[in-house]
C-alpha cells in the first residue's frame, strides 16, 4: 500500500458568541487570522452558542481531521474531554479552561492581574470613593476580574466602596449604558467592565457624565472614549493563540496548564498616554511597583 501524503496542518476556532464583540471573541478571531498569515495553514471558524452546538462543533472538527482546535471558553472543557476520548490525536486548547486531560489543555489568562492594576489607578483617582464594575454574565474570568479590580483599588485606598452590576447579556449596549448610569448615580466615578459589546454603552455613559473615568477590558479600548479611558486591561489573545499553534505545528507541544499573566506580556495593563498627566507621580510609582512584583511572582 502506498503511504498517503500527510494531510496539511489545520487549525479551527470555536467561539461561544459573535466575533464582532470588540473583545473576547474578536481577539481570538484575530488570532486565528494571524495563525493563517504567519504559519500559512488552513483555518476554520464556527460560532457555537449552546452546549449541544459546542460539542457538535468540537466533534465535527475532530472528525474532519483538524489538528488543533481552540474552544474559546471554559464551557468547552467537559465536551472537549468527551470528544478527545474518541480523537486522541487532536489537540484541544480550552481558553480559560480548567485542567489537562489527554490532549485537552487549558490556556489561562490572568486578566485579573491587569484589572488589579486598573483598580489601583481607580482607587487612587476616585474622588467619591465609589467605583463601579459592569459585567456581562457572571463567568469565572469575569468575576475574577471584578474581584481583582476591587482589591487593587482597596490596596491603594481602603476607603473605596465598590458596586457591581450584571446584565446577563453580552450584546445589549443600551442596557450597558443604563447599568453604568445607575452606578454613576450612586456616586461611582471610576468604572471598569467585562461585558464585551454591551460595554460600549458603558463608554457612552462615561462620556455623558462629567468627572467619570473608566478602564477598558480585553483590548486596548482607549479609542472608544479617548478623553475618559484611563487605561485598559488587555489580553493579547492573538499572540497567545499563535504561540500555541506554533508549538503544536512543530510537534513540540506537550499538554500542560499554560497560564499567561503580566509576566508573559500576553496580559497587560495599557495606560492611555493622553491622560497620563492625571495620574499623580506617587500613584504611578505604586502601580509600577505592584506590576513589577506581580511579574516577578509570575516568573517563579
Amino acid at each position: 500500500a502506498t503511504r498517503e501524503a500527510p494531510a496539511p496542518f489545520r487549525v479551527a476556532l470555536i467561539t461561544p458568541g459573535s466575533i464582532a464583540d470588540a473583545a473576547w471573541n474578536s481577539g481570538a478571531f484575530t488570532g486565528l487570522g494571524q495563525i493563517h498569515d504567519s504559519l500559512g495553514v488552513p483555518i476554520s471558524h464556527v460560532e457555537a452558542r449552546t452546549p449541544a452546538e459546542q460539542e457538535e462543533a468540537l466533534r465535527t472538527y475532530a472528525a474532519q481531521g483538524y489538528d488543533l482546535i481552540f474552544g474559546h471558553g471554559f464551557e468547552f472543557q467537559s465536551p472537549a474531554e468527551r470528544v478527545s476520548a474518541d480523537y486522541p490525536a487532536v489537540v484541544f486548547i480550552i481558553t480559560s479552561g480548567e485542567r489537562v486531560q489527554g490532549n485537552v489543555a487549558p490556556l489561562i489568562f490572568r486578566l485579573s492581574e491587569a484589572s488589579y492594576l486598573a483598580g489601583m489607578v481607580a482607587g487612587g483617582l476616585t474622588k467619591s470613593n465609589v467605583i463601579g464594575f459592569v459585567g456581562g454574565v457572571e463567568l469565572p474570568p469575569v468575576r475574577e476580574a471584578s474581584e481583582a479590580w476591587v482589591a487593587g483599588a482597596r490596596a491603594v485606598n481602603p476607603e473605596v466602596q465598590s458596586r457591581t452590576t450584571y446584565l446577563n447579556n453580552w450584546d445589549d449596549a443600551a442596557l450597558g449604558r443604563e447599568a453604568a448610569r445607575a452606578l454613576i448615580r450612586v456616586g461611582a466615578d471610576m468604572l471598569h467592565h467585562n461585558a464585551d459589546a454591551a460595554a460600549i454603552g458603558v463608554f457612552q455613559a462615561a462620556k455623558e457624565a462629567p468627572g467619570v473615568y473608566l478602564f477598558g477590558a480585553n483590548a486596548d479600548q482607549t479609542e472608544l472614549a479617548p478623553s475618559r479611558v484611563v487605561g485598559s486591561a488587555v489580553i493579547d489573545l492573538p499572540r497567545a493563540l499563535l504561540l500555541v499553534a506554533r508549538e503544536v505545528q512543530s510537534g513540540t507541544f506537550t499538554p500542560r496548564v499554560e497560564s499567561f499573566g503580566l509576566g508573559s506580556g500576553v496580559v497587560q495593563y495599557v495606560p492611555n498616554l493622553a491622560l497620563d498627566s492625571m495620574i499623580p507621580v506617587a500613584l504611578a510609582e505604586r502601580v509600577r511597583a505592584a506590576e513589577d512584583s506581580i511579574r516577578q511572582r509570575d516568573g517563579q
Partner: protein
Amino acid sequence: MIDPMAVAADVLVAAVGIATPLALAATGETIAERSGVVNLGVEGAMLFGALGGAIGATAVGPVVGLGIGVLAGVLVAALFAAVAIGAGADQIITGTAVTLVSVGLTGTIYRQFYGPAGVGLSLPTLSPLPLPILSDTPLIGSALFAQPVTTYAAAALIPLTWYLLFRTRFGLALRAVGEDPPAARAAGVSVRMVRTWAVLLGGACAGLAGATLVLAQVGTFTERMTAGRGFIAIAIVVLGRWNPVGAGLAALLFGLATALQFALQAAGLKVPYQFFLMFPYLLTLLALAGAVGRVKAPAALGRNEY
C-alpha cells in the same frame, strides 16, 4: 452625600429613556395588531432602524440618521408585508424569519463597512433638549422635559396614534379589519390594503425606535443590539391592551422596573443579581393579574383567511 430625591429623579430620567424605544416600537405594533397582524419582524425592523440611524448619522448627522432609520424600518416591514399579507403566509413564522434575515443582514452590512471584527464607531448623538421652565419641575421635570427629541416624538406619537385609530375613518376601517375581516370586506374595506398600511406604519415606528437606541443612547451600532426589545414591545402591546396610551404606560412601567433593577443592583444589596433581572417581568405579570384584568385581543389577530 447622595440626595435620595435626586436619585429618584435620575431613576425617572432613566426610566423614560429606557421606555422611549419600547414605547415607539409598541405604538407601531399596536397599529399593526389592531389591523389583525402580529409582526414579530419588529425586532428586525428595529435592528435595521438602528443600523440605518448609524449610517445616516455617520454620513450626514443624527437627524438624517433618524430619517434613514425610519426608512429602513419601513423596508423591513415591507418585506414582512409582502410575504405575510401579499402571499398570505403565516404571520408568526414570517416575522421570525424576517428578524433572522435582519440580524444577519445588519451584521453583514455592518462588517462590510467596518471590518469583520467591527470596531465600535463613535457617532454624534442627540443630546437632551430641556424644555424651558417645565424641565425645572421638581422630581419629574428632567424625566419628562429634558429628554432627547425622540422621547418627545414618542410622546407625540401616542396621542396621534390614538387619534388615528379611534377618530379617523382609516382607523375605524383598520379596527374592523382586525376584528372581522369578512365584515370589513362587506363594508367595502380592502383588508390587504389596510393591513399593509398598518404594518408599514408599524415598521416606521420600529425603525425610529431602533434609531433612537443608537442616536439617543448608545452612540454606536453593535450587532444584535436590540437584544429582544422587539419582543418586549409585543408584550407591551398586550399589557397596554392594544391601545397606544396603554402601550405608552406599559412601556413606562417596564422602563421604570428596569431602571429600578439597575438602581437596586448599584445600591450594592446582597441579593443574587438574577432576582433583580427577573423583577421587570414579575412586575409586569403582577400588573396583568391585578390592575389590568381580562383583555381581548383583536379577534382576527394572526389570522390570514379572509
